């Protein structure tokens, strides 16, 4: 065992990369939930995005096209959820589960011929001198562009929800669809768009996994990241800025346990691999234990079916 092999600088730098997939997926789910919809299909949308992005990048040789296709793939499959829950008024929990089961199957099917292939490499920030500054260089200035894009997206969502009229409408719809409907806002349209945004973000998160983090395609490679993204939304009590904290925390745990595995700590590998899931549970419990505080931010209409009558 050699713990000194773990460098804190590299740890921070790699946790930023490691947390990007869940960061993307959870910021998307935050917007969906803020509109009052609970989409449990994040895992399915993420893995669909992972394979769509991977296949497109391999076929075209362009990671950029890969990311675009991942977002499109995630948004398209989320549209199925949107149509079922918003037009067919199906139960959101059941439909979200169906989305996850379907996405896992579909992606495995699409990904058959992509196992073991190396994708084209993505653009990495590499500023002469600046990227080589000790500590700050690796942490701030030498990441893959997805890391910066995800941070920008979090900032964008925060600004959108807080300062724009459309953001206000979205929050209003999630707070009370009946009131929003009575004021003449198109509840279903707002929610469908939010769901598709969430799908696109989850798709991007999947691609960040298959094109940057791993980078490779394997069946079921999201391994619960989508579910962790859902947990992060709860952890963040529906605040974008806290999504960042949550994602980095989980990314940190994941990276740390990998580093510990590599360093040959005497804890068996399996128990280290469990840790992100156990930490998720602990965090969920901690959050729910002081619910009074966080409940204020939970959208009041979350998960309820909206059907305008009379």
């Amino acid at each position, binding site marked *: 065992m050699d713990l000194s092999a773990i460098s804190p600088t590299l740890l921070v730098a790699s946790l930023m990369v490691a947390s990007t997939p869940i960061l993307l997926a959870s910021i998307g789910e935050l917007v969906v939930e803020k509109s009052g919809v609970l989409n449990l299909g994040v895992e399915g949308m993420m893995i669909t995005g992972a394979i769509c992005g991977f296949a497109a990048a391999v076929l075209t040789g362009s990671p950029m096209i890969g990311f675009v296709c991942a977002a499109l793939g995630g948004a398209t499959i989320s549209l199925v959820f949107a149509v079922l829950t918003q037009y067919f008024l199906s139960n959101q929990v059941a439909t979200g589960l169906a989305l996850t089961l379907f996405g896992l199957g579909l992606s495995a099917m699409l990904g058959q011929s992509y196992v073991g292939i190396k994708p084209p490499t993505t653009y990495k920030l590499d500023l002469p001198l600046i990227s080589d500054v000790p500590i700050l260089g690796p942490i701030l200035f030498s990441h893959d562009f997805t890391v910066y894009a995800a941070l920008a997206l979090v900032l964008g969502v925060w600004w959108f929800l807080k300062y724009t009229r459309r953001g206000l409408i979205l929050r209003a719809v999630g707070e009370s669809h009946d009131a929003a409907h009575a004021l003449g806002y198109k509840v279903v349209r707002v929610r469908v768009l939010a769901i598709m945004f969430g799908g696109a973000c989850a798709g991007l998160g999947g691609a960040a996994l298959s094109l940057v983090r791993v980078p490779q395609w394997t069946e079921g490679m999201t391994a619960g990241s989508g579910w962790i993204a859902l947990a992060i939304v709860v952890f963040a009590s529906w605040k974008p800025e806290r999504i960042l904290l949550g994602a980095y925390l989980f990314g940190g745990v994941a990276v740390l346990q990998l580093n510990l595995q590599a360093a040959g700590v005497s804890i068996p590998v*399996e128990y280290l691999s469990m840790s992100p899931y156990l930490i998720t549970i602990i965090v*969920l419990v901690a959050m729910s234990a002081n619910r009074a505080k966080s409940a204020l931010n939970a959208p009041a209409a979350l998960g309820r079916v909206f059907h305008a009558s009379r």
Partner: protein
Amino acid sequence: MLRVEKRPSPSKTWGYLAPILAVIATMIGGGMMFALLGKDPFEAIRIIFYDPLFSEFAWYYRPQLLIKGAPLILIAIGLSMGFRAGVWNIGAEGQYIIGALFGAGFALAVYPTESVFIFPSMIILGALGGFLWAMIPAILKTKFGTNEILVSLMLVYVAEQLLASMSLGLMKNPEGFGFPGSRNLQQYASAHNAELWIGSGVHMGVVFGLIAVIFAYVMLARHQLGFHIRLTGESPKAARFAGVNPNRLIIFCLGSSGALAGLAGLFEIAGPSGQVNIDFNVGYGFTAIIVAFLGRLNPFGIMLAGLLMALTYIGGEIAQSSLGLPSAAIQAFQGMLLFFLLAVDLLTNFKIKWAKTEIIV
């Protein structure tokens, strides 16, 4: 424009027709998917739905129907009670693994003692394992209000790691030449969940599945507990008013579904699978969610749905070898079935009408 209108009361006819319609729609949708993969859709559908029952080799596949259907039905019966009450146990896969580990662990510990008490003890331990694993989300939910969906699901991944650790470590076969995996329980007479009649596919899991179906039916239709479960699902506030203790109901729903999933895992590991190994769990715990919905959360419906889903597993395997259909295609196919079912469910509670001027949705 099409208009959706709530029915004054849910349609009974559509309640029965909806699953059938969903299966037909899935055959069409799945056929299109297979065609896109370059396979003959008609042949694929025939292989999946017809061949296992009526082809030349049906004598081999028919017992498989029971072997694959039993765990699905056992798990889905348990899940359906929770789903009715709005308690979402998504982690049956984990409870299935832990149940198997408890039962198999006991058998491996007492190996090679032969006794008639071994198998019954394994059954009890299997149920206990699943029950305890499900108590984690149950207690967290009742004590702290933690979301049971996420906790039960996270525990699946934890259980999978435990399974891996057991098959590579503690439970590894000392005479296994270093290969992962435990001793094969099929070769340990006292612990073997053997077929009751050779070649019938009927093992104790099938018997327990049938008992669970009947038990669940009687409970839902005639017993106070079943009434309270239905009431809680319909309207939690009305249930509270009727005197239902929500916490006790959560414990019951999660506990019983965990115990049934644990039983399913035990019967599988002591019978068809035989071995504690990394690839022991094949997703029955997740497919059972589809089975529960397809059976409309009704015990006898679940029995039929479980057999149908077992059919697609077997048919999928045949199609894999004869058509080269990817194994994942069946998983996508099953997911599609749940989508269609949720979509046609609309017809049970709503009427669709042509409207001239107004759009309500």
